[in-house]
């Protein structure tokens, strides 16, 4: 079985004026379909840079990164946008919903950029919102929803394109303990149904809900053995 996500010696160097920062110094990582991996690390460890590269929001300076069999290490911005649209569902710490749009329109957004016709968009957005338990809230705007509900809308948005990978960046960082539990239950449920999830977090108890986890320190990965490991 080929990995869903495979990184080989991925490096990222930022040149800010005279100082160059080696944010990633050779990452090797494989994630298989159905995995639920937590990436942990303190701030400044290169955690965000790794998340950006996994999410195709940025390209590595060196190394090879394949997502779902596609080499994305040297793609143009346009091609990256298409890969993000089709292969990745993002869940952000601060939800990143557009405040002027209803929950349903927010969930439809990735489908808009995929060129899906309006009727099909509506249907799929409704289905995704139903899956996260918000069928009653489709016409509410983000301002009319609680933090937990907003994050569930963004999970629905991440699922609506049926992506190869759900990439969650500190998904519970802005939530109270009750909503955190709700969202983590939802992720567990999705993973049980076969969804591949990569979650970036700095909280050990959140990472403990994943089936495996890795730590990143100073731009290098260190394997943990919590569950059925990342190097299956």
């Amino acid at each position: 079985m080929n990995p869903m996500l495979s990184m080989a010696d991925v490096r990222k160097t930022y040149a800010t004026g005279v100082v160059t920062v080696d944010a990633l110094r050779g990452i090797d990582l494989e994630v298989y379909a159905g995995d639920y991996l937590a990436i942990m690390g303190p701030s400044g460890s290169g955690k965000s840079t790794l998340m950006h590269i996994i999410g195709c929001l940025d390209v590595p300076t060196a190394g090879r990164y394949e997502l779902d069999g596609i080499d994305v290490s040297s793609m143009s911005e346009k091609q990256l946008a298409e890969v993000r649209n089709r292969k990745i569902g993002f869940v952000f710490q601060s939800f990143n919903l557009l405040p002027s749009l209803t929950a349903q329109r927010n969930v439809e957004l990735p489908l808009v950029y995929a060129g899906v016709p309006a009727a099909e968009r509506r249907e799929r957005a409704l289905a995704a919102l139903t899956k996260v338990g918000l069928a009653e809230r489709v016409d509410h705007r983000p301002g009319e929803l609680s933090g937990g509900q907003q994050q569930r809308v963004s999970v629905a948005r991440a699922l609506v394109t049926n992506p190869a990978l759900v990439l969650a960046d500190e998904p519970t960082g802005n939530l109270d303990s009750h909503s955190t539990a709700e969202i983590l239950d939802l992720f567990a449920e999705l993973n049980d149904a076969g969804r591949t999830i990569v979650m970036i977090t700095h909280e050990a108890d959140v990472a403990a809900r994943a089936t495996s986890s890795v730590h990143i320190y100073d731009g290098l990965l260190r394997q943990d053995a919590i569950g059925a490991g990342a190097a299956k």
Partner: protein
Amino acid sequence: MMGWSETVRTAIAALNARRMRSLLTMLGILIGIAAVMLTVGLGQGAQQQITSQINSLGSNMIIVTPSQTTTSGGFRGGGGAASTLTTQDAVMLADKTVAPDVVAVAPTSSTSGSLQSTDSTWTSTVVGTVPDWLNVRAREVDSGRFFTTAEVNSSAAVAVIGSETASELFTSGSPVGQTISINGQSFTVIGVLASAGSSMTGNEDDTVIVPSTSFAARLSTSSNANSVSSIYLQGKDADSLSAAYQQVKTALLASHQVTSDDADFSVSTQAALVETATSITGILTLLLGGIAAISLLVGGIGVMNIMLVSVSERVREIGLRKALGATPAVIRRQFLVEAGILGMLGGIVGIALGLAVAAILTPILNFTVAISIPATLIALAVSLGIGIVAGVYPASRAAKLAPIDALRSE
């Protein structure tokens, strides 16, 4: 790829979310478009009015006027001196062998006259001419009759007066048959002209027309009784007008023994007058329209400014849209469409404002503000174009934003 209808829908939603700002931004375009439409409308209205006035002077008309050109010898003629045109010139031009395409010739002389009737006194322009004047100038007699060639030959003391002159001189009863005094000379009124309105050459209804011979004998103040102030000629038809023009010019040059470089007269056709007037009003229109267009330019800069503000305010939104799969091209198009809609809405409201002001001004100025459909369509296209051009720079800034930088900003 995102469809057009979806792009337009998203753009309208974004503009609607910042309604007040969108309205103020549109105001710049709106005022500019309205100003351009009104100035151009006023110019074209003036052009139409002048053209119709010139055309109302007669049909297929050629006008010969004395000109006081300078020669190496100094000024030809002096102030108030005899005109270089004479009744002999008119007689010569009436000859079919000299100017075969001229059908009527009317030499005219004019002076200011103090008029006196039994009822009142009045001052008007007195014109001495021949019966052909009526045809050449396309005038009609309302009551009574015009004088005849026989009356010209006999220097009869008869006069035909304009409708306004008639009402000023005679408060009741028909003027026809009454006697008036012109500069102390007695004339019998034999007819009243139908009204022709005022033109750029003066009030055509306040005038007294007398036979040229009577004018020369009794009223002329010129040192040469044979001189005339202008000669009006009528060409056979529109097609032969330029041939008639050439015949008149050649004949006069020969009889005055001058070359066209030092000609002591000038010949112009109605078409040439219209052309001159049109080019003058055209230049004025262009000038005023140009000034108004500057306000349109300022409006366009306003759109660009607001779009730039909008891009920096919506960095997070742009980042999110990119993360969810919007390509740089889609983001660019999104902002271009927003700017285009701002421009076009401003244009539509501006056109409506221009039409409304034109409708209000027309009766007030007693002057048609001519706003044509092509001008309206051009205004609409220009406003859309300004919006899009103003949107290019902000849109490419938005398209170039890196998604991680955009998402990071809080």
